[in-house]
């Protein structure tokens, strides 16, 4: 072995040792106490994710510069690098949605962009992460202002309900879809399930009452409202709905016994008293109290008591009309129909 070769070997050995030292100094945390293979795979995954994030980053930059199409390519590359990541799918769906929004309403391209956005969201949902955000956006995409596909909306809403992270609104929207499709049983089941899932959501109880009212099942509607208000007497909207239901029974149910109608009047006046005592004097409350007082006066014997009822009704009507005057829009000129 020549002297030159020997020096090279020394240098090589020294550099190898130095590299080894550096490697140890860098301290690969993952190599301690774990299998190298597993850590290698972990590192490889992280690098893949890093690559995806790099593309997402570039996609964001492209968006900031207003280059939507470049952003689309970058997000697509990110999705290819790491299919499990939701973020690029969501952003890509956003870009497609924005492209669709910039197209004319009847442009076939608009629908195509919306469809692509929906596909991205489906992919994000299938990715297996938390699907709720993507599902919520999918609901929007399938909505009347998007692809206008009630079946798609229904699918997404049902998936959201299955996640157990649903909001009352989502149950109400699903019930609304069933309602519109004439699927009464499904609508009712959805609302009943929503009531179990969100027992404190007044909107759900009110909507269930509305469901029954629309089917002219007044008793069921009133039962729902009464049970809700027994626990939540401060729900003014629900209380007003109950008062309106009582009005129907007291003033429009001509086949009901006089005592029954009188009881409904008394109940309604009790509710209105409480609402007016605990909150602002809303015109609807004042005016309903006024008409209920007139109804009570009609059933009372002529005399002082009846005169008092009528006088109070007049005063309430006056006040209610004053308060409601600025609110309602004026009817178009010339419309004075009965």
């Amino acid at each position, binding site marked *: 072995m020549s002297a030159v070769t020997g020096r090279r070997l020394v240098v090589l050995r020294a550099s190898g040792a130095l590299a080894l030292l550096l490697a140890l100094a860098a301290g690969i945390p993952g190599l301690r106490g774990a299998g190298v293979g597993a850590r290698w795979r972990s*590192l490889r995954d992280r690098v893949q994710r890093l690559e995806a994030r790099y593309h997402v980053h570039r996609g964001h930059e492209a968006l900031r510069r207003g280059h939507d199409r470049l952003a689309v390519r970058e997000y697509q590359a990110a999705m290819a690098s790491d299919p499990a990541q939701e973020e690029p799918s969501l952003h890509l769906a956003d870009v497609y949605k924005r492209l669709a929004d910039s197209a004319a309403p009847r442009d076939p391209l608009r629908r195509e962009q919306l469809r692509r956005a929906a596909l991205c969201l489906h992919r994000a949902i299938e990715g297996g992460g938390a699907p709720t955000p993507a599902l919520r956006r999918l609901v929007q995409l399938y909505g009347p202002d998007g692809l206008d596909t009630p079946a798609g909306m229904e699918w997404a809403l049902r998936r959201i309900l299955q996640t157990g992270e649903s909001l009352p609104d989502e149950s109400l929207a699903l019930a609304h879809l069933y*309602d519109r499709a004439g699927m009464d049983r499904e609508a009712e089941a959805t609302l009943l399930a929503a009531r179990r899932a969100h027992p404190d959501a007044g909107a759900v109880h009110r909507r269930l009452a509305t469901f029954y009212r629309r089917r002219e099942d007044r008793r069921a509607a009133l039962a729902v409202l009464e049970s809700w208000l027994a626990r939540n007497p401060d729900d003014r909207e629900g209380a007003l709905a109950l008062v309106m239901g009582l009005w129907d029974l007291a003033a429009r149910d001509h086949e009901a016994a006089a005592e029954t109608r009188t009881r409904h009047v008394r109940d309604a006046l009790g509710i209105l008293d409480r609402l007016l005592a605990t909150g602002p004097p809303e015109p609807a409350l004042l005016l309903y109290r006024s008409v209920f007082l007139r109804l009570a006066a009609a059933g009372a014997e002529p005399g002082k008591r009846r005169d008092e009822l009528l006088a109070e009704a007049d005063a309430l009507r006056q006040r209610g009309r004053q308060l409601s005057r600025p609110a309602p829009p004026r009817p178009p000129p010339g419309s004075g129909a009965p």
Partner: protein
Amino acid sequence: MDPASSAHDVVPGPPLVPRFGRLSRMTVALSPLVGDVLAGAVAAGLFLLAAAAALVPRLESAFGAPGPAVAASVAPLDLLPGARPVAVHATESWEKIPLRVTAEDLLEDPTLWNRMNFDDWDRIPDPLRTQGLERLVTRHGRAAAGEAAWESMTAADWDRVPQPIRAMAVILLAEYWTAHYGLGIGHGIEPRVAADTLAALLMSESWFEHRAVNVDINGNRDLGLPQLSDYARTVLDRLHRRGWLDFRLREEDYFNPWFAVLAGAVWLDLMLDEARGDVELAVRAYRRGIAAARRGDGGPYLEKVAERRDRYIRGHGVSPTWDYLSRRLRGKRRLPAGATAKEGGVTGPASAQPRGREQETRARPLVNAS
């Protein structure tokens, strides 16, 4: 060193790694170099690995900077046009009550429809108003479908018919009974004039409220669409007993528009007879009685009836709701000018069916009936 002896020294020696033969021998010969290179490569690899491992978190944080916010999802109910809030007015006991409902309520809720009169619908912006009115027509159009439907409807059935549809049905009922009983024909009054006057009169009396009851200071009660007084109802009863009328109404029948408009038509016919065909005098007499009308009473009432007849019953453009429903429900059923009972081609209801020939059994002129 002699190369030959050196080769001789190597060849006879025992193989260091006998099993791997020549390759092994070469490896052994090169082992110092290969070992160093391998060690260097492994070290470099480890270095790169370590560097990557150290770099990845930094890069992750560098590329993990938040991008543009992902568009927030809209509350699903806000997406649905039917769930959007709408301000409406309900009419309860003639009182206008402001309410907030959803568009869907307006399209689907029959209890809301029962609270809304023409002017309440007029306030709803189009196309929602048209959609809602179309739902009304679909659901309650039967009330304007003609005698077969009217005959089968009870007062309770009419309770479920919203006021705008009921109004159109009442106008059609006025046309029907005008044709059926030949209202005013004996005095040469055109059926169109008679029917329109009757409809305007019913409108002025009850505003199309079939359950209307008005109790005066003496306790007398005016009932139903024609607001016939105790006296008028007694007179109709008496005429029936004498065989001059082919129907007799119970008090509750006055709340059923089918019978109530019939009673109103017959009473107006009696007034026309009293007024000897003077329509204006008959209208004032309907309100004030013939004696007071002859003294000149009932002028303001006549003006109201005439105005409503011209603006609503005959007119259009006064209310978009009225126009729409009038077009949808009355469009093809307008009584032609000069039509007679025969031309009308109508038959009486089973419950009020004339026992003999219709023209002979209809209300006769009653001089001094009031």
